[in-house]
């Protein structure tokens, strides 16, 4: 269960790329409040949660991702993050795959997904090394615009469609924001 949710964490502040010089061009991500993010994810027909190895730096996030997974969202565990799920005994719809090959697949409309059931319509990135996630968002932004790019990471991700502002230095607020997303997904 998500921790008791504090209402109204403002996730739209500090819309500055976490690597400040990553300013690619005229199209830049917008920051959204958690409940909007949650509602968008809830409405996605084929969402995919993509999580990376930074979860090991903040292990409680594994539990939050598992909570999202239990709502029926498959999880692509990139890098070696799958170990966090193995250790927690949760492997339902958890797939071990690198972010690079995964993004390569996602570029193609004929990709049938990790479960063979079809291409995804939304990817939700979380816990991935900033520069790497930023570049993979860029690949999708430029070469497959049919997939909605959502970041619920603690960074402002300029190449996403929807992102939080920077919350890298306010971990408590960030945790609460993710809990708000989860709560909104349950509505």
């Amino acid at each position, binding site marked *: 269960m998500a921790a008791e949710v504090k209402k109204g964490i403002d996730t739209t502040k500090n819309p500055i790329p976490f690597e*400040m010089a990553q300013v*690619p*061009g005229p199209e830049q991500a917008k920051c959204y409040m958690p409940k909007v993010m949650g509602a968008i994810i809830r409405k996605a027909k084929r969402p995919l949660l993509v999580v990376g190895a930074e979860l090991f730096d903040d292990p409680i996030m594994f539990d939050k991702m598992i909570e999202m997974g239990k709502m029926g969202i498959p999880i692509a565990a990139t890098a*070696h993050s799958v170990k966090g799920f193995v250790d927690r005994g949760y492997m339902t719809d958890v797939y071990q795959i690198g972010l690079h090959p995964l*993004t390569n697949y996602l570029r193609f409309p004929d990709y049938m997904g990790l479960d063979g059931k079809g291409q995804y319509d939304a990817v939700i990135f979380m816990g991935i090394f900033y520069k*790497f996630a930023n570049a993979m968002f860029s690949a999708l*932004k430029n070469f497959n615009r049919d997939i909605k790019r959502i970041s619920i990471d603690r960074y402002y991700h300029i190449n996403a469609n929807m992102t939080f502002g920077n919350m890298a230095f306010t971990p408590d607020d960030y945790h609460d924001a993710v809990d708000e997303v989860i709560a909104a997904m349950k509505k």
Partner: protein
Amino acid sequence: MATNQGSFSVEDMKNVQINIGAVVKEADEWDQEMGPFPKPGVATLRSWDHMIANRYKIMYTPADDTCTLCTYGPCDLTGNKRGACGIDQAGACGKIVLIACLMGCCAHAAHGRHLYHWCMDKFGDMKFDMGDEILVDSPLYQTIMGSKPKTFKDFNEGLYYLEEEVVQLLAATHTGQESAFIDFESKALHAGMLDLLGMEICDMLQIVAYDMPRGAADAPLIEIGMGTLDQNKGVLIAYGHNLAAGAEAMIYAENNNLWDKVDIGGVCCTAHDLNRIGLGNGELKVPKGIGTKPKVAGAMGWWRKMIRSGVMDCVMVDEQCVFCDVLADAEKRKIPVIATTDKIMLGLPDRTNDPIDAIVDDLVNFKMPGVAVLDPTKAGEIGIRVAIAVKPKRAEAKIQNLLTEEQFQEGIKKCTTCNECAFVCPPHIRISSLIGDAMKGNLLSFSNMYEVCVGCGKCEQSCPQGINILDLFEYANRQYIKTQKFKMRAGRGPARDTEIRAVGAPIVLGTIPGVIALVGCSNYPNGTKECYDIAKEFVDRGYIVVTSGCMAMDMSLYTDVDGKTIWEQYPGGFDGRNICNTGSCVSNANIGDAAIKVATIFAHRNHRGNFDDIADYILNKVGACGVAWGAYSQKAASIATGCNRLGIPVVVQPHSVMYRRTFIGRADKPEDWMVIDARDGKMQQIEPAPEAMLYIAETKEEAMVEMAKLCFRPSDNSIGRSIKLTHYCDISMKYCGKLPDDWHIFVRDTKDLPLVYKDQMMKELESKHGWTIDWKNKKFISGPLRPADVSFDPTNLARKIRTKK
């Protein structure tokens, strides 16, 4: 004028101008027939490149959504839109990739061109002799050029060829020329191949001219680390990639018996090359064994840490990988700088033709911060004399290198925790947290992050309080700097033919699970120790581990429980459970050379002018995988691209997204994994092996799993495949806690299954993947993509089909 073929008489000629064209060489002594593609032009190997690009999808990760290269711009290319000139985002990315590869290629080629002229001037035209144990002595040159260099002069042909190709390639990047991304990539692959050639020419020239080791598995252990530089002597640092001036400094010190007054430390690849001089068994034109006298100060990633640590008195820079603010950093600390090549002159006055005494006087008395001296011999003498003479002057000037305790405290108190520094730090170090801990008296956090910090200094540029953050790191690590003393094996040079004969069959059949080549520089995503961890994992598992450049240096900074570096733990042969240091950045060519030699020495493939045939062999049969775990430069982009054209996959670290382009296959598309069986010309589906040509891994753990997978080849026999699967699965179990999701697609026969997982896997194949199994005979009835077939001869080239007479 009467002439016979090949000769004419000049006795009676008057006022005649003679233009000599190409000189027809003496009868060819090489027993190999000329292959189809000697000196391939820009489009010659295009079909091979397109085969690579069709299987390994070109994937772009644009760092910029706009194009600003011409006056039509800026153009917004977001979403693969076209700009005013008509180029789309993919084409624009391809253009930048090609330019980057050309930068890298030119850096090595120009290095080779400089060395060529310098060696011809200094040593004269020498016989190209790699010794009795390396008869296939220039595999890349022979494969690409279709000829064998016999003396230094012959390398000129290779350089001319390379230079012409580079001009043609660069021309294609002009607006209005090439626009198709796939052809930009074909050209980038061409540039990469040329880079391999340029590196080989460089290394072969210096190996012979400076009598470096020629495949010496027992090359000596040498000293590495900032703590090895004797602070009682003048310390001269030779920094960069071109050994010419550094070598002259060594020779001057030797000839004038000055080693008790001066220590020479190399930084970056110049360090490797200085430490190889005079350690060979060839013609000796340099002092015997002199290469053991200088120290390896460290890799280029340590530069800003070194200069702040106060370990040096004078710096000579040559070329490539030199931080652009070297002069500013040195001037601040009264360290005279000598620029020794025309590639990096730093705005300094050119004093090449001035008297040495006058230059020394100016530098020692701080009349100018540095000079450019483009004569290596002169620069070398000046470097030694200045380092010795300036040391007491610098002591008198009371130059402060490290902060005092008070200054350190003053610095950290300025921090307002605004975290601007964290927004620019490549490895995302939370510097304000380190400062917070330091305020509580705990410097351990600064110490722990010392090797993670890449020394880029962007934090200092962004700090609104003007805190010299790198100086804080230096202060906190002052004890470590003094004790940074380790052992590294000197660069051994190429693999010997006998070594290749011994490992050729095990590599091709898979019983040596692979060749792992760790190359490149030192900007790791999570600290320099990662290169040691990766090397250790694979050498322990019986892979052949090969390394070079800054990677070889950085992995020397760690020891096992017995205090031994990796070089002291394992022998230096080209064999399983060995680790070779091939040498400097240009010695990376030796890695490609080894792969070619497997094809030509073990498999008797003709390599002469036959690049795509050899690359096809390597792609299908030689389980090699490169890893550039920290590379920053365009040279790394071109080296990796050259390896890709040669059929060698490469894994890179996450910062490498800045290179913008990767090659990665789609394992879900069976039609992408069809090859020709050369025995009968029939098409055969294979497992995706290797699955990628250029793969970005997020963490070292992911990299290691992927590297084990990228060593699979269609030609593996069952024993070999079983061994490779064992390592792939073991590494995944170790770091991911589970078997990889795709292990089953590499299984062709029950004999392929790793013994330790066999029962579990058999059950899973039946229950999860729907294979049918004859349990009594332990055989697959259905399921595998193809049967295991030890005589299967996979190829991507139709001309390799063996026709029956």
